[in-house]
């Protein structure tokens, strides 16, 4: 059991590699490498975002953590146990990317079904279903069969299925898929509350702006490897310094390009990337001393999305 005072991390991943072998790749004595020597750990009560481009190995990693896939090498521990063990599964709530439900079951029936699979009695399962339906704003459609639900409702129901039995670890694959803006805000509030209650959440999402509002801890995967964005991209120029220029000003663009490699110059703006805000005043002062007429100075920190795009463009070399 993942005790609140337990000292071990909720997820402990050590040197995990995964190679998929199909009949074709077996014949050619090679496989598709999805993960390569991946190590990380997640402590209790944290929300960790799993990000990366398509084919980066996110779903494979979630699958290994949920006990659906076996790693080729290395080991994963969930609450100190193998993810395929019953003990670990008691602590786990899993939400797949594309949830599917039996069409004849109602929303309430689906939650009761999953509650009973967790060993709850009839009364307990009813109470659990009612509570989760309320929490996920699905009470009005409690008796509606799953095939008659909207995509957003099904998504919320899938989250409810993951929450059945109050697991201490939630593994969520694209939970905000198909949710409307209000639904997304509510999802964020719910996940934040769950983390405050001590639940650990590993969430994969392509909605980076949304993920950024939810957490500041990420695992960035690229081609099966973890990229430490804190020490690679973030340590480089992640602040955009935008200097407004007077249109009539005579600017030697060539000289500026030599001085600030990678800068962008238009008729009325110069954009330079800097590592920290402290670098801004000397640059502005130097430009003013050179007689360049400056109309405005603004700075903007790169969003997670900007970082993501830059890392992907650079091919993940950190």
């Amino acid at each position, binding site marked *: 059991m993942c005790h609140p005072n337990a000292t071990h991390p909720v997820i402990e991943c050590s040197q995990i590699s995964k190679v998929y072998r199909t009949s074709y790749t077996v014949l050619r004595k090679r496989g598709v490498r999805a993960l390569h020597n991946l190590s990380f750990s997640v402590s209790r009560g944290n929300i960790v975002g799993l990000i990366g481009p398509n084919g980066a190995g996110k779903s494979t990693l979630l699958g290994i953590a949920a006990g659906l896939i076996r790693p080729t090498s290395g080991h994963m521990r969930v609450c100190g146990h193998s993810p395929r063990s019953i003990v670990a599964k008691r602590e786990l709530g*899993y939400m797949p990317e594309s949830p599917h439900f039996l069409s004849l079951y109602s929303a309430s029936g689906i939650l009761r079904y999953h509650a009973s*699979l*967790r*060993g709850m009695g009839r009364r307990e399962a009813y109470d659990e279903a009612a509570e989760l339906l309320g929490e996920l704003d699905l009470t009005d459609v409690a008796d509606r069969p799953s095939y008659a639900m909207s995509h957003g409702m099904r998504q919320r129901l899938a989250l409810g299925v993951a929450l059945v039995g109050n697991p201490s670890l939630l593994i969520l694959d694209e939970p905000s898929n198909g949710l409307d803006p209000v639904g997304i805000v509510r999802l964020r509030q719910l996940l934040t509350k769950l983390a405050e209650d001590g639940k650990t959440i590993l969430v994969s999402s392509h909605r980076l702006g949304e993920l950024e509002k939810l957490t500041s801890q990420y695992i960035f995967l690229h081609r099966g490897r973890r990229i430490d964005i804190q020490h690679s991209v973030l340590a480089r120029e992640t602040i955009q310094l935008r200097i407004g220029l007077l249109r009539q000003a005579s600017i030697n663009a060539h000289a500026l390009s030599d001085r600030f490699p990678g800068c962008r110059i238009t008729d009325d703006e110069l954009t330079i990337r800097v590592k920290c805000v402290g670098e801004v005043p000397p640059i502005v002062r130097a430009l003013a001393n050179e007689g360049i007429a400056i109309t405005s100075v603004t700075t903007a920190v790169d969003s997670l999305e900007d970082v993501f795009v830059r890392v992907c463009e650079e091919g993940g070399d950190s």
Partner: protein
Amino acid sequence: MKGFELLKETFLRKSYLPVIHLIVFAIYLLLYVPANLPVEWGRLLFVCSGLLLPLVLTQGIFGDDIASGRIRVLVTKPLQTGELYLWRLLGVSVQWIGHALCGATIILVLHAVTNKGKLDNFALWCLCSGILYATFASLSMTVSICVTGGRNFMVLVFGIVLLGTISVLAGPHPTYASDSLVAIIKHVFPPVQLLFQLANSKTPLPGHIAVRVLHGGILIGAYTLIGTVLLHTREFAHRES
């Protein structure tokens, strides 16, 4: 509660399953309509409930879940994989018991009222139907773990056609190879012909019945074991988005 939900699921997993039961009952009823129909009711029950019913009721029983990805949620629940397999096998078996009871009641009541058809060895036909059903169901479930969607149905139909074709082709001029092949298929496939012969004989010996029951039991056990191991060891990967 867990067992009840898993049993219930085998009946409600597809909307047409209750309709299948009703269609078979309707066949029993309709066959009483023509006058002087020389039907042996036990034989009909054997074909309908022992041979056809398991193929339909277990179609895609795991394969549908694997194809839709629903299995990924099921196997993350604190359930032993063997437990999942056995509850489902029990679920489809309970369906057969209910079906056979209703079907037999319809046949016996209408026979008593109309006196049409024959009821020779009816209890033995019921027993053979049950063995055949359970063997086919367990084989179909195991095949369903290996082939996604409802294609386990096609695999079993192909097996039946293959067995029939080899038997017919090898019939006039049996060779060692064809005999061996038929013997292998007969022993690993649900014992349709053997059970048919058993229920068809006028005075079957108790020893013969016991051997057939044992044979069916061994096959059910073997398929269940293979299915459980396959379900436990199989990975449920998902394509990267």
